[in-house]
């Protein structure tokens, strides 16, 4: 799967979970760039991403993620 396609699908998950259709993510987006992306919603987002892409993350993998780009690269590796 291409990175841009992963990013697009992650973007639609964010819009759905955070209930905000206007969110536009880039690879460098972080929690500071999206108002509703807090520690409470972070877990919902991860659960939804896992379900959507049928992948499993370890806590340490999640803690190390610095931005959306790293999340997408991680998904890309797991689905390859």
């Amino acid at each position, binding site marked *: 799967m291409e990175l841009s396609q992963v990013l697009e699908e992650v973007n639609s998950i964010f819009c759905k979970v955070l209930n905000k259709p206007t969110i536009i993510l880039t690879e460098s987006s972080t929690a500071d760039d999206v108002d509703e992306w807090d520690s409470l919603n972070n877990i919902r987002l*991860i659960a939804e991403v896992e379900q959507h892409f049928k992948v499993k993350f370890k806590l340490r993998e999640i803690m190390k993620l610095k931005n959306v780009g790293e999340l997408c690269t991680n998904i890309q590796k797991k689905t390859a």
Partner: protein
Amino acid sequence: MIFNSWEFAFLFILITGIFYLIVPQLRKWLLLTGSIIFIGFNHWGYLALAVSTAIITFSSGIWIDKQNSDKTRQRIFTISLIAHLTILVFFKYFGFLEANLSLFIKTIGGNWNSSITKIFLPLGISFYIFQSISYLIEVYWEEQEAEKNLGDFLLYMLFFMKFLSGPIERPGDFLPQVKEKKAFDYDKVSYGLRLIAIGLFKKLIISNQLATPLNDVFASVQDYSGAQLCVATLFYPIQLYADFSGYTDIAIGGAAILGYRLSPNFNRPFIAQSITDFWRRWHMSLSFWVKDYIYEPLAFRKRNWGTWGIVYALLITFILLGLWHGDSWNFIIYGAIQGGVIIYEMSRSKWCTKWNKYLSGKWFKTYNIIRTYLIFAVSLLFFKIEKFADVIYVINHIFDGIGSTYKEISLGVRDHNIIVISLATSLMFLYEYTDSKWDIWGKFEQKSILIRWSVYYLIIFIIFSCGDFGASDFIYLQF
């Protein structure tokens, strides 16, 4: 030895003087010696325990880092985590656990009397054990390389400006600073001195002056009218904030003079519009600690439970946060209230967004700020008052005696002191507001030396003329 004592002032001036006179290579050793004197001056037992804990943490870190197998790493990490928690539980919660176990046995018909009343509580234990755990987790998660230099590690654990009540420093923030060469920096020294002055202003003029009347009310609540209980409940958050943020300002300022950056602990908490927002602004080094090391691992494990997983993680996290403060059921309730309100706010977030659209944003914002303050003020009754029955008494009688006289609600504080406290509190909030909007100190630095030193002398004069210098510990020293 506390920050607002002459002994500390003498030690700090002595250390700072020598710090900038000796060669840079010796400076961290001077700070370590100063920290050992500072802790040992309070009690040699505190020093022995803190140094032993630091050595256990240091050795565990190296041991974890050396392992290649994930299973062995996990085993060593678990053993060292249990060792640290055992130290904390033994010194802080053993009496509480034994008393509750004895009560439980009696309830089911058994006979066992609790023999331990209280084990002595080593100063700063809750702070440095949490710092140790943070270090071990970071090493275990491979976010932090294990420190190989025992001297540097001891300074990270024992540094006297943060030893007693934090901020709880992460290894990644503090350890690199120990290795930097510290040169004299006029800007950092003047920034540090200003923060110390602001901290002393908050502690001596606001917190100490409010301490006596509020302590009197909360020590014997039955002797006071409903209106007096109401006034005390409303003012306690301000006293606690002035006390703890004053302590933190002195800690950060003192560290800055010696070339170290400590983490911020407060970000204008009383403008928070929800309890969720409040805990991102209040005692941040602790709230971020529990978020990263308790809430996120718990919520992650239960992520398939959906909202219930978050509810479960929030409740456990905040109950433990409450319990961190002390060994009583009241602290557990205090934590549970915070967690409960955050869960409620989470469930109402869509509703709030909708109302925010209909109502004028400004009015809804003001309502939310007041609501958050009141919830926090009432929850602090469990934090401040020792007996559960007394908290219930305050809650039941808080609206009695509406129409009380000014003399009654002034809680015996003289008019002169009420004016001083009111002006100082307004000044504190005004300063925080302007400081958050504009770089006032940056602009101030550009003024002439005459204006700058006139202001400095004015601040010193105000602190000496209006401050309450009676021996009064910082509230968070008890934790």
